[in-house]
């Protein structure tokens, strides 16, 4: 085990973790505000990747591809919320899970029907080519830039959540949706926004990650599971929980793949089991919503 390898893996962990953070952030605000566990979250990730792929094929601009991915998924999220999810707010939680699960299946299969099952490739943008010198080793430029993109997105999230009225409503809704409703605030309208933004987060992650992995209709399944692990570890409904959980999970995956590659995914679940036993509400768990 050499230093260069270690540094590279630590950064891989950060990159992977950063993407998990964004995806989990979307998932956690949807759950925190709406009380809905979005089993279609992986599908939104895939949708974003494909939307970005199309946009890139048309415009050759990666920036536009990212924007397209995020916006398209945001709109899809809004449509799904208005068209389907909103009928489920008063239905039992299990039914909500079932419908998001079903919606996820439909989305992924629709993508498969349109694009086929073969992998597509979204190339690294021109400003991401090459490698950066990190003192001891070289590291792909694009991956560092991913960290930057995610940091910007997180900053935006933070600003919206903690410095705007909308964010205040969302955070209050996470703590106690009933009171927010009784205060006369149209919680349902914020639901729309939150679902859309949460979905867009997954979509953005899909585009951003596309140059690193292959774009297939099934790329979202792993992400869905991993984002669940992230929020169980980090604590549901918590901004910092998503950040901490995502980075921890990313590093677990990267570092274990150095030592015992066949166990890297399993270690993730072992960590989740550990958190469940020692601190069931997660590292930063908010006890507002059960």
């Amino acid at each position, binding site marked *: 085990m050499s230093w260069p390898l270690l540094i590279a893996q630590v950064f891989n962990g950060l990159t992977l973790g950063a993407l998990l953070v964004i995806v989990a952030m979307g998932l956690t605000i949807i759950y925190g505000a709406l009380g809905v566990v979005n089993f279609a979250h992986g599908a939104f990730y895939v949708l974003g990747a494909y939307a970005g792929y199309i946009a890139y094929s048309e415009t050759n601009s990666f920036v536009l591809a990212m924007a397209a991915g995020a916006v398209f998924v945001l709109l899809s999220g809004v449509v799904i919320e208005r068209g389907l999810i909103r009928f489920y707010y008063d239905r039992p939680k299990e039914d909500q899970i*079932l*419908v998001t699960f079903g919606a996820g*299946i439909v989305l992924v*299969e629709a993508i498969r029907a349109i694009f086929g099952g073969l992998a597509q490739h979204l190339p690294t943008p021109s400003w991401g080519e090459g490698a950066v010198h990190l003192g001891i080793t070289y590291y792909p430029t694009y991956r560092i830039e991913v960290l930057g993109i995610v940091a910007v997105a997180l900053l935006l999230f933070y600003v919206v959540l903690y410095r705007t009225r909308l964010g205040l409503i969302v955070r209050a809704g996470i703590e106690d949706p009933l009171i927010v409703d009784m205060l006369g605030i149209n919680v349902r309208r914020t639901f729309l926004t939150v679902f859309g933004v949460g979905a867009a987060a997954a979509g953005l992650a899909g585009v951003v990650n596309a140059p690193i992995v292959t774009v297939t209709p099934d790329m979202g399944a792993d992400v869905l599971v991993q984002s669940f692990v992230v929020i169980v570890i980090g604590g549901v409904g918590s901004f910092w929980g998503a950040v901490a959980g995502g980075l921890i999970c990313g590093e677990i995956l990267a570092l274990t793949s150095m030592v015992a590659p*066949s*166990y890297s995914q399993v270690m993730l679940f072992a960590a989740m089991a550990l958190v469940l036993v020692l601190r069931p509400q997660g590292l930063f768990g908010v006890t507002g919503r059960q």
Partner: protein
Amino acid sequence: MAALAAFLVTFPFTLPYVGGAIDTADRILDWGLFGLGFDLLFGFTGLLSFGQAAFYGVGGFVTAWLLVANVTANAIPALVGGTLAAAIVGAVVGLLALRRAGIYFAMLTLAFGEMFYFLDLSPLATYTGGENGLSNVPAPRLDFGLFAITASSQMALYWLLAALFFAGFWIALRITRSPFGAVLRAIRDNDERAAALGHDVPKYKLVVFTIAAAYGGLAGGLLGLLQGFMPPDAFYLATSGQLVVQTVIGGSATLVGPLVGAGVWLYLYTLLENVAGIGALGTLILGLVFVALVTLFRGGLVGAGVVVWRRLAALPASPEEAVAERELPPTAMAAHTTPQGEIVLEVSGIAKNFGGLVAVDNISFSLREGEVRAVIGPNGAGKSTFFGMLAKLIPPSSGRIVFAGEDITRVNATEVCQRGIAKTFQINQLFSNLTVHENLMISALAREQGKFRAAMFRDVSRETGAARRVLDVADAVRLAGRLDAPASSLAYGEKRRLEIGLALATEPRVLLLDEPTAGMSPAERTETVQLLRRIAQGMTIVIVEHDMDVVFGLAQRITVLFNGRVIAEGAPETIQADAGVRAAYLGNPVPDEQPA
């Protein structure tokens, strides 16, 4: 059961006429068997698991490995081994996943299911063949000792699967009709109430989870035998998902739903295979059907079928016989004498802080056997918090609670109910999808069989002790004429009476009532007071109430709370005359109190 037998016997002959092969029939039965356990878990107990593939895979690979590695040539111990392995794994996963409820449970089972997939793929690849799976699984040789059968033909395999499905169905049916099954349904409807009535809910959940895992393991083992090959995709998330989709499409809580759903799924695939262009859309179409059914008809195909059948047969909704309520003697006013019984409930110095807010500040309280005590006070006095601590819903910040000589300060609500303290809730906590009879039975069962009993094979209708208790309580709360009505269809007053009935049916020594007349009309209130007076004879009661007529009509002693403390305690006349109590209610601060 006869209908099922008939179906199973004719199925392999009818299916080819509609384009299916025997192999498809085999697979449908395998999924149906897998789904029997899942329906017990999800349909009957309400636990939505997305990780059943883990048990399917474990059972399948253990069975296959036992045969391929030549540990045994007999398929029977191989299948048993696989099923047992799956059950053990199920118990372990259940212990972890059931720590959280509802949505967390769904997410956790999904994650654990995936964990097993990855375990199968890499670390355990030497045993499981990794991505290639285990091939050369021999045709099942069933060695019964005296004779052996090898099921090598398609038809033979079908009969094996049909026999096992039939047996599995019979067992699952018995379970649903047993006291154990009744408690599962209660858990699905309102698991907190089931726990408050004295059932060890976590244990019931763990047992049903293990049973579902066992069914999954058996189905997995059969898959390997059926195919001669055990594939790694038994562990896929898609497998767990397919099980969920099939069950919902077929209809959950029907036991045959998963079989029907599997039929629809596999049949659709067979149909579409031959249609050019649409072939690959099978999953998409099924996904759309699934979403449509969940949204529009949650009962699934079987549920829809039952509704149609009822309409066609013009069956009325369950007829309610007009059972005349027994005439009960009028009760005299509660005698205002000092109760002579021993102290049955002793509360010393309990307090509750919520952060900086002191809700209850050092209250001591003694209750004698046979006493009817009312706890009153203006809003914000701490009544609900105090009641919550008595009812073991809220842990006290300090102090002790002693019941019949035993310290119950740290004992949970389930155990406390078993020991003899029952409570009613201010907001009705009923089992809304169950009938009145079934509701009361849940309480009576808790008394009959304790916190947990694995009574899975007897029929709940044979529990004569419990049944008698149910009828007695139904009489006492004047619901004898409504025994077959679903709780959700009752009028509000009737629901309140059922709420009291649930507590009564556990045969408590002490009954805690939280605002029993909340939301009632004056007429209903009078009726309730009559009911409570009847019940009060021979029972020890603590009642938190706002309505003074109710309080003075019932109580032998009254405790008045204000600002988290007891400011007066005594007979009703004394309390009525107390200046401090009047001041507390009317707002003038009592001289030595800080203004609120």
